[in-house]
């Protein structure tokens, strides 16, 4: 039997639809432990491909024979080899086309809601990395927020819906992924906005994004209101779009809050983080729908594949918003933090324009899970 390639899009649909399926991950145990395809109904078996070079007989009792098995590796080659061996034993097998590399780069656009006068808001879910980015569209104009480096996806999407990209924003200088913002702005002639306090070392031109500023998209004026909310970085800025959606960047997530240590300034920024979360956000309408720049765990994904929750609900349920004691809060966000994202220093320098790694290098720098949050 021949094996079929399964592309990242098909895997994304299975994850979003909470389908049950079986993954045979043939990467090293440490890679698998660090980062894998996550989904509510996925069963896994991990064995490095090099343990199987003499045959797959020893794992036949570990993989199901009555349903399709998806074999996954870093790039593709070894999963293809193992898939063929399993297929030779009569199993129904697919391999992940492009491997975890492709999974890390896949973006799934999901409409999160309507804006005024026919406008629309889309969330681009990067399932393999936990990054979320946005496109607000109105009357043929589009604004993009927190774009990933897979810029073609946004350009193609805007083209398909007949929109011209006029504004590109980054809520802060990212440390976990390489921003595509500047590239998109260069390709489209759009204005690129960045908080000036995060941009003191950047080597390119940008428009200073400051709290209180309003940008309108389309002639029906979808309003994008910038709200200065430091803490994850000193420049971190949130957006309120159409008085309905709160794009919280890396300050507030669904089940966690931002970490203040990725620029080495945890002690200095913890008070800002507290102030943003416990004062500034408290002044906003609880009806706002929070749309963060990341998710951390698969449970944060809604049934339609989007990641969002009402601000009022987060005030009730998000642990990070319910720590009365300031000292306890300080302790949580500065001590026992999870490991920092892969290559986060180099990623920050790339986002400042100080270094320009080639595409392979950029991909390598981003590999692995995002780790911008504390729970």
């Amino acid at each position, binding site marked *: 039997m021949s094996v079929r390639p399964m592309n990242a899009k098909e895997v994304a649909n299975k994850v979003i639809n909470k389908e049950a399926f079986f993954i045979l991950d043939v990467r*090293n*145990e*440490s*890679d698998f432990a660090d980062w894998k395809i996550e989904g509510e109904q996925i069963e896994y078996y991990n064995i490095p491909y*090099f*343990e199987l*070079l003499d045959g797959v007989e020893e794992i036949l009792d570990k993989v199901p024979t009555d349903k399709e098995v998806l074999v996954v590796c*870093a*790039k593709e080659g070894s999963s293809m080899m193992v898939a063929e061996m399993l297929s030779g034993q009569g199993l129904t097998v697919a391999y992940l086309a492009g491997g975890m590399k492709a999974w890390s780069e896949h973006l799934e656009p999901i409409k999160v809601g309507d804006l005024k006068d026919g406008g629309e808001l889309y969330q681009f879910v990067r399932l393999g990395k936990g990054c979320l980015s946005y496109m607000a569209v109105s009357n043929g104009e589009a604004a993009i927020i927190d774009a990933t480096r897979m810029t073609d996806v946004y350009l193609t999407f805007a083209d398909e819906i007949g929109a011209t990209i006029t504004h590109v924003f980054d809520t802060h200088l990212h440390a976990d992924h390489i921003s595509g913002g500047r590239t998109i702005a260069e390709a489209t002639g759009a204005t690129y906005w960045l908080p000036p306090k995060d941009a003191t070392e950047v080597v390119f031109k940008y428009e200073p994004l400051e709290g209180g500023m309003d940008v309108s998209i389309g002639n029906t004026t979808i309003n994008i209101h910038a709200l200065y909310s430091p803490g994850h970085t000193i420049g971190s800025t949130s957006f309120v779009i159409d008085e309905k959606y709160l794009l919280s960047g890396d300050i507030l997530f669904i089940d966690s809050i931002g970490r203040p240590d990725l620029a080495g300034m945890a002690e200095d920024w913890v008070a800002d983080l507290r102030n943003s979360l416990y004062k500034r956000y408290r002044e906003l309408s609880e009806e706002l729908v929070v749309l963060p720049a990341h998710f951390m765990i698969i449970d944060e994904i809604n049934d339609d594949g989007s990641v969002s929750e009402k601000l009022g609900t987060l005030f009730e349920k998000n642990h990070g918003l319910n720590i009365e004691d300031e000292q306890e809060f300080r302790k949580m966000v500065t001590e026992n933090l999870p490991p920092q994202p892969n290559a986060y220093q180099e990623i920050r320098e790339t986002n400042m324009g100080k270094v320009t790694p080639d595409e392979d290098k950029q991909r*390598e720098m981003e590999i692995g899970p995002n780790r911008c949050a504390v729970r």
Partner: protein
Amino acid sequence: MNSNKVLDAKGLACPMPIVRTKKAMEELESGQVLEVHATDKGAKNDLTAWAKSGGHELIEDREEDGVLMFWIKKG
């Protein structure tokens, strides 16, 4: 560093560097050293893990002009 055999696995993509390394290693005696040259970035992780699981010893590894070089002592 001395080696008993040199394997050129440059330009080969995963899983071939490991497949060839395994084959080359089978032709050596215990205690002999295989030198492997590869360009696949994943080779470092994989060869390290493979050597360990096979009871071999990765004595040294370094990178020269984009070529990853490994010296593995057969266990």
